[in-house]
């Protein structure tokens, strides 16, 4: 369906990839072309509007026209240790002065050359298993913009690292990539932003892979704010080692059709993965999220909480699975999706699944669907707050229950501000 996308070389400036990487791209292209497109019958695509996957109108992204504007627009937290800005798959800006010694923060084009050993070991090492294998191959065949962040053992990066990915121009195709590798007992916080320069419909096919060695602690925040009509894939895997703790939050503010896949694999004893998502959906947006909490090692824990607020004719799909492998005794896994339904035409679909192959587990999951609390609305209206504003305040409060799980305070406050702004509050 998308062969037109592949006819032209996507990034003419990158003809000098190292041979192993170039070979990988070619192989991925063949894989993409050989893999059939999803069908309605695929369980991994159940409930999804397959019609959304038509890529024919997208073209390779041209170099950006407004470099300065994009760099200036890449404002996140006040204090950060490093920042990179990509526009239409090309590096536009980079600052890394605040990073401790030994930390590698490099764009892919230099990571493949200068940090080959680390990059090769972790780059797309985890196959995409939750339905979008084809699109992961498309990503690999085209990826050029993106960053490798490697934090050596024992190193604590005290201020967050920020990465901005921009799409510019109608029909542009972008392939953002973020690879975070946390060495033993290291600590880092990463904010990944996905933004549209002009609000025009684009195609984004991103991969973000997080690797945590023993005792590492990573907080990863993805703020997805593509144009409201864009087609976006965000394919994530998180591999958590012994006693390491990953906290990941995805906020899907933008995109017309968003397919998110998140796989957390707990490979070390005592590992913990927290998977959070905030999804304000309105208009005809469709947010399709598939997750896997894969418990391989014993005594690991995982905790998933996805919040969807659905207005207008929006759709959400949550298909989650907790898998407890035979050896994963002492697993403690939790999974919950909550749908706040604001409109009669909204369409929430929940498939919270469990596959348990060990008896020594504590696993619970839940899915709830509920309307706005009319009493709360009435209470606010009685105090002079308009019905629409009151609704937005309640949605904001709904999302804030999740933000409380994220620390530290200043990061939580910052994210609270982003959510409030998205909901046009204050």
């Amino acid at each position: 369906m998308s062969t037109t996308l592949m006819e032209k070389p996507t990034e003419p400036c990158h003809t000098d990839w190292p041979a192993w990487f170039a070979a990988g791209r070619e192989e991925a292209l063949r894989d993409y072309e050989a893999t059939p497109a999803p069908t309605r019958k695929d369980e991994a695509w159940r409930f999804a509007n397959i019609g959304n996957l038509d890529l024919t109108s997208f073209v390779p992204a041209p170099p950006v026209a407004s470099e300065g504007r994009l760099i200036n627009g890449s404002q996140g937290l006040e204090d950060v240790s490093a920042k990179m800005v990509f526009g239409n798959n090309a590096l536009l800006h980079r600052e890394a002065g605040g990073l401790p010694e030994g930390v590698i923060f490099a764009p892919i084009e230099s990571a493949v050359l200068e940090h080959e050993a680390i990059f090769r070991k972790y780059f797309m090492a985890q196959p995409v298993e939750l339905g979008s294998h084809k699109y992961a191959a498309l990503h690999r065949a085209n990826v050029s913009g993106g960053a490798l962040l490697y934090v050596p053992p024992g190193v604590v990066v005290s201020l967050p690292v920020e990465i901005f990915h921009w799409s510019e121009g109608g029909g542009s195709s972008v392939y953002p990539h973020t690879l975070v590798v946390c060495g033993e007992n290291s600590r880092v916080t990463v904010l990944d932003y996905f933004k549209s320069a002009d609000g025009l419909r684009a195609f984004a096919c991103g991969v973000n892979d997080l690797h945590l060695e023993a005792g590492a602690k990573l907080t990863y925040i993805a703020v997805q704010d593509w144009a409201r009509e864009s087609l976006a894939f965000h394919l994530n895997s998180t591999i958590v080692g012994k006693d390491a703790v990953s906290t990941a939050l995805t906020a899907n503010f933008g995109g017309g059709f968003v397919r998110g896949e998140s796989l957390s694999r707990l490979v070390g004893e005592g590992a913990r993965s927290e998977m959070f998502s905030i999804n304000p959906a309105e208009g005809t947006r469709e947010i399709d999220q598939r997750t896997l909490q894969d418990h391989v090692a014993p005594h690991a824990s995982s905790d998933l909480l996805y919040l969807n607020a659905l207005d207008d004719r929006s759709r959400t799909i949550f298909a989650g699975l907790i898998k407890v492998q035979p050896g994963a005794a002492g697993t403690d896994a939790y999974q919950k999706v909550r749908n706040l339904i604001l409109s009669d035409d909204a369409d929430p679909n929940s498939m919270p699944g469990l596959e348990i192959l060990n008896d020594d587990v504590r696993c619970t999951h839940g899915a709830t669907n509920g309307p706005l609390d009319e009493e709360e609305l009435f209470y606010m209206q009685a105090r002079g707050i308009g019905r629409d504003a009151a609704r937005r305040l309640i949605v904001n409060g709904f999302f804030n229950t999740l933000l409380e799980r994220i620390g530290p305070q200043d990061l939580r406050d910052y994210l609270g501000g982003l959510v409030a702004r998205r909901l046009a509050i204050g």
Partner: protein
Amino acid sequence: MSTETTHDLNIDRSVGDFHYDVDYEFDAGTGLTERTIDFISDVKKDPDWIREFRKDALRKFESMPMPTHWASRDLDNIIFDNIRYYLSQGTQPKRSWDDVPEDVKNTFERLGIPEQERKYLAGVEAQFDSEAAYSNIKAAVGEQGVIFVGSTEGLQKHPEIFRKWFGKVIPTGDNKFSALNSAVFSGGSFIYIPPGVKVKHPLQAYFRINAENFGQFERTLIIADEGSEVMYMEGCTAPKFETSTLHSAVVELVALKGAKIQYITVQNWSANVFNLVTKRGLAHEEAEIKWIDCNIGSRLTMKYPGVIMKGRKARGEVISIALAGDGQHQDTGAKMIHAADETTSNIVSKSISLGSGRSTYRGMVQIGRHLKGCKNNTECDALLINTNSRTDTYPAITVRGKENACQHEASVSKISAEQIFYMQQRGIPEAAAMSLAVNGFVNDLVQQFPLEYSVELKRLIDLEMEGSVG
């Protein structure tokens, strides 16, 4: 004509007094073609519309793929050509009591099944003498105008009611196995309860089985007219010692305005059986349909009783207990389709997995848009007994409309070591303590079964637990 169809049975059917009547009027042979359908229709003296219905179903069955993209791949091990689709009365393979395996005999003994019933259940006697019991029930309810007959008799003698609802709740093409059943169905019950009649006695298929050969492809249709009430029970706790490996029933319930239907199933299949059943009820305004379902045994059971709540304030409920023993897969669940305002549904499912047994809950809850005041509650709890036991939960919930609510919860646990330790401290052996704990786990559901079933169920769970501890 072949005398041996399948080989993976606990008994050798060539031993003993096994024969088919030479007159092939009673045997459709193995495999399934249009000729098989004609044969069945000829023997059963089907009206033309049923013959056509069967043939249409056969075409659908043949064109539909096996649903292995979501269901167990074990389904691919069913060899349709080896299956005998129709055996009429008197042509069942005969077998002597001595051929019945010891463990089955022991189970009968432990469950306290009467001698006469044991022989029937073991397949030694094609009929056991309950004709009297059936006649009594039939006479008692007949006075109230209740029709309680086999599906064949139903379609021949009461076409005006039968035809109106037959195949309407579960269309032929609903799934591959409902299509198969529609093509070759025989046996099962047809029940009609007139308006306002509240049937005091539960109607039991158990008593009616002998009136017609208890088939592999039963077809049951129950219609409860306005304001009536009925409870129907099928199966029993004793192991049904089966010679046929594929069972595929279709059960349709229709509860008209204000009617109540309770359908209780307790099934304990032998470990070679594929039990692939489609059960669905249609609840009109203020009607209530409740499925109480207990699944034990079989190689693979796939069964998701459903209720379509078509009228305002209709109510659907599924109460289910599944016990997956070593090597068995219980793939059960529920479907709740809300299609009117103020409809409510409740699903409570408990499963126990023993040894390498696997229990799966698969559910579907749909509340349509522009409906008001609909509620669903789903709870599924799984208990794992051994380290290699497995359980899965695959719910799919689509709840639209801002004035509806739904909650789904599931938990998986093992028996707490502290509980067992506590009981052992007080002199209860470990195995008995485990049984007590398991019985405690399902107790609130077991109480919803009629008394005689609940007593037998508890004994059965004790039995199944034996050997799985330690």
